């Protein structure tokens, strides 16, 4: 097992737990990697946050930081540099670590063109889905959340690489006519076009609306499938082209 203890902090309630566990692991010679996301980013301004520096690698979800109204206060967070505001990159790092027994390998944007050879060699490449915003980020029409996020990023990577298909693995069975958690009559949509979906003008969708506009004009990817990753076998079915979840066509 890896000597790294990865901790995802998504709550702002348990700073003492985070500090105590980090200190205990550090004392035992373990490497500790902490990623603060969701409400957990509020802990970055907790007076005890400084106790983590030097004992753990610290990263903060940039999108959550902004969504919680902290934009502009990055410099106040001790032990976290500009590059450590990592958004989804940290998730990719943790996922690659968990998948390492099966060839999971963390790759970055500059490695994307090496994907074919990595797959040929049996690697399981893991990258973050958020498009690279190092130089420029499309500003959102309203609010602080960028419109191009992981769904769009995954689609763009598949399109640029000329991939056979693009499958989005979610925690729901697919796209519904309404939110199935609050609307019991919501129906699963199994097959729909991007135009039909845009015409429905749904308030909330399981994937980013921006993806639909890109799909309409894509050169390689002509369909995107959404499957529930919590059901064993769904990804294999999707890879085999079987009917599962929702398929959205250009």
């Amino acid at each position: 097992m890896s000597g790294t203890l990865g901790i995802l902090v998504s709550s702002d309630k348990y700073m003492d737990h985070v500090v105590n566990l980090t200190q205990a692991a550090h004392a035992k010679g373990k490497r500790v990697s902490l990623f603060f996301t969701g409400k957990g980013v509020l802990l970055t301004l907790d007076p005890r946050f400084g106790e983590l520096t030097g004992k753990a690698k610290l990263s903060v979800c940039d999108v959550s930081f902004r969504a919680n109204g902290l934009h502009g206060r990055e410099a106040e967070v001790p032990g976290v540099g500009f590059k450590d505001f990592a958004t989804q990159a940290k998730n990719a790092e943790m996922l690659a670590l968990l998948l390492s027994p099966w060839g999971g390998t963390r790759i970055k944007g500059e490695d994307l063109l090496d994907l074919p050879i990595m797959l040929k060699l049996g690697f399981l490449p893991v990258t973050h889905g958020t498009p690279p915003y190092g130089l420029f980020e499309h500003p959102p029409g309203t609010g602080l959340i960028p419109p191009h996020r992981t769904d769009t990023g995954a689609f763009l990577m598949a399109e640029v690489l000329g991939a056979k298909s693009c499958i989005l693995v979610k925690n729901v069975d697919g796209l519904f006519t309404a939110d199935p958690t609050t609307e019991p009559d919501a129906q699963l949509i199994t097959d729909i076009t991007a135009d039909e979906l845009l015409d429905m003008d749904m308030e909330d969708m399981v994937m980013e609306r921006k993806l639909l506009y890109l799909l309409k004009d894509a050169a390689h990817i002509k369909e995107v499938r959404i499957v529930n990753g919590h059901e064993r076998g769904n990804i294999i079915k999707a890879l085999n082209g079987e009917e599962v979840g929702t398929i959205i066509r250009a």
Partner: protein
Amino acid sequence: MKELHILRSEPDETVEKLTASMSADHTASIAVLYEDPVDWAALVDQIYENDKVVCWW
């Protein structure tokens, strides 16, 4: 498979049901963080001794 459930706060009925259901067919242990004192060093050992760790709210 050895599984560790870490409870950060006192479990409600849902968490109790879920932990029992997830642990039904293999060895599972529970670490409680809401009662003092917590042996943090022992918790680190427990995390590394288990194949899977689930941390509850």
